[in-house]
């Protein structure tokens, strides 16, 4: 078995007395797509900066491509890493082609491959224009192109699909699948779990620097109690008190004729009875699987609840 590309053991990082990351363990293998999911400030960008050696951990050990990234010798290892920062910024006076050439030179990668990279992200036609005139989506695509310079073995992508329209998003994930099939390990962060359906092999949910879930999306669904969403439409408007819902989100709120309940599948009948007992007649009931965003919210809420 080959060694993992990334290994994080008990890593902690504090900023201004606040835990940015606490006792985090993580492994990323070759050809794997791992998604880091969490709100802003959950520790996603901190982890990526640690993996790049831009900051040092306060505790724990990190190995990236066989090196400690904060050590001087790790600069060479970065040749095999492609990185896309959360907010991509370039020197506005340079053209797309010039910027890509600059980064390729820094990586010691052949400049001839740049044309293909620009075409791959759909920027071939505007490569000669200054980046200052690019739209946000175009800058993001240029960012992706620079991350792919030199055929990296490991990709670290911080919120990579920000500013991409749905079509490009599709193309982007298709590209990631291709790269993963070639053995590239991909770590990408996102604040939306829903976007990652069928995209990531594994999802790690972070909350305030701690890992609250790690597994496939199916695992996560199970961990959240396989929640369902029940939409009830009443014959007449009814007042409904919040807080009568299930353990997943704890919400049963209605405005007028609609009542919405989100709860584990196993509890759905009990919930329904509790909410509906003694009310006006029901006009319609709709049962839906909870969306990934609701599962995500449920996981975070479950983590926030006091233990016991």
């Amino acid at each position, binding site marked *: 078995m080959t060694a993992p590309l990334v290994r994080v053991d008990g890593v902690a990082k504090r900023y201004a007395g606040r835990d940015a990351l606490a006792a985090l363990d993580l492994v990323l293998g070759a050809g794997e797509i791992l998604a880091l999911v969490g709100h802003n400030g959950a520790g996603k960008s901190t982890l990526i*900066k640690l993996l*790049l050696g*831009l*900051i040092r951990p306060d505790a724990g050990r990190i190995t990236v491509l066989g090196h400690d990234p904060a050590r*001087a010798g790790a*600069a*060479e*290892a*970065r*040749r095999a*890493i492609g*990185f896309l*920062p959360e*907010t*991509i*910024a*370039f*020197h506005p*006076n*340079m053209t797309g082609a*010039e910027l890509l050439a*600059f*980064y390729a*030179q*820094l*990586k*010691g990668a052949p400049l001839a491959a740049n044309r293909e990279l620009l075409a791959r992200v759909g920027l071939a036609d505007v490569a000669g224009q200054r980046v200052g005139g690019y739209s946000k989506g175009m800058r993001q695509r240029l*960012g992706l192109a*620079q991350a792919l310079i030199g055929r990296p073995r490991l990709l*670290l992508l911080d919120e990579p699909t920000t500013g991409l329209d749905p079509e490009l998003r599709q193309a982007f994930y298709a590209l990631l699948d291709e790269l993963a099939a070639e053995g590239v390990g991909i770590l990408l962060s996102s604040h939306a779990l829903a976007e990652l359906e069928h995209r990531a092999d594994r999802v790690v949910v972070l909350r305030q620097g701690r890992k609250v879930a790690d597994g496939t999306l199916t695992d996560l669904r199970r961990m959240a109690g396989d929640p369902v969403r029940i939409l009830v439409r009443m014959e007449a408007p009814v007042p409904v008190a919040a807080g009568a819902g299930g353990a997943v989100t704890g919400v049963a709120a209605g405005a007028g004729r609609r009542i919405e309940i989100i709860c584990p599948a196993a509890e759905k009948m009990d919930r329904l009875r509790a909410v509906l007992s003694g009310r006006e007649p029901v006009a319609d009931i709709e049962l839906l699987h909870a969306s990934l965003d609701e599962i995500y919210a449920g996981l975070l809420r479950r983590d926030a609840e006091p233990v016991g």
Partner: protein
Amino acid sequence: MKPIVIIALREIREGLRNRRVLATASLLAGLALTLALLGSAPTGNVGASRLAVTVVSLSSLTIFLVPLIALVLTHDTIAGELDRGTMVLLLSYPLARWQVVIGKFAGHVVMLGLATAVAYGAAGLALWLGAAGDDAAVAAFCTLIGTSILLGAAFVATGTLVSTLARDPRTAAGIALGVWLASVLLYDMALLGLLIADQGRTLRAPLVQALLVANPTDAYRLLNLTGLPEVGQFAGLSGLAGHLAVAPATLLAALGLWVAAPLAASVAVFARRQV
């Protein structure tokens, strides 16, 4: 080594692209030519070399302008990139942080050096073509160009240090302005005030020498105005030069130190800075 060259070339290309180099060279050339052609007009009657007189006026111009330009060019070189988010990406590449600092420094020195050499060179050439001075004056003029670039390099290094220390580009701009005021204006005024107050009781010549050498603009001034007899005659410092005889090598070394020390400090600070 290679990343340094790549980063320096990127800085130069950007400087040429956003016309900073052109603006700097035009400003310096305009002022230098004005001084050279108009400022030395009366010299014909008193038998002074126009080239030598121009060295005096140009070095005064340099003391004010070159440090200011160097600080304007560099104050945001690190702080600005950190602020805009381009630094994080740059540091994710296979290079060391010191290479970023040295590359940026080198790029800015080349830009400023180029602008100075072209601008002052044009003024010198104009005078030389008019047979305005002898060989000694030409040597003095070449010294002026060389030391002006060295002074520029000292302030490029200082500006880079300011940029690595400052939290954001606005703070860096404020500190850079303070540095300029302090070294170009306040230092000399304070020294003068001290000398007057002291009446020569404790501040003896060696100490005054040391205090002058400790400020890069004063080291530059002494180097250009007292170093060469041909020029010293017109600088109004010939009396002073006798008391403050500091060897040109010492002055050059002082300027060199003013390049090396802030640069080394920038490297050290940036190596520890969280990004």
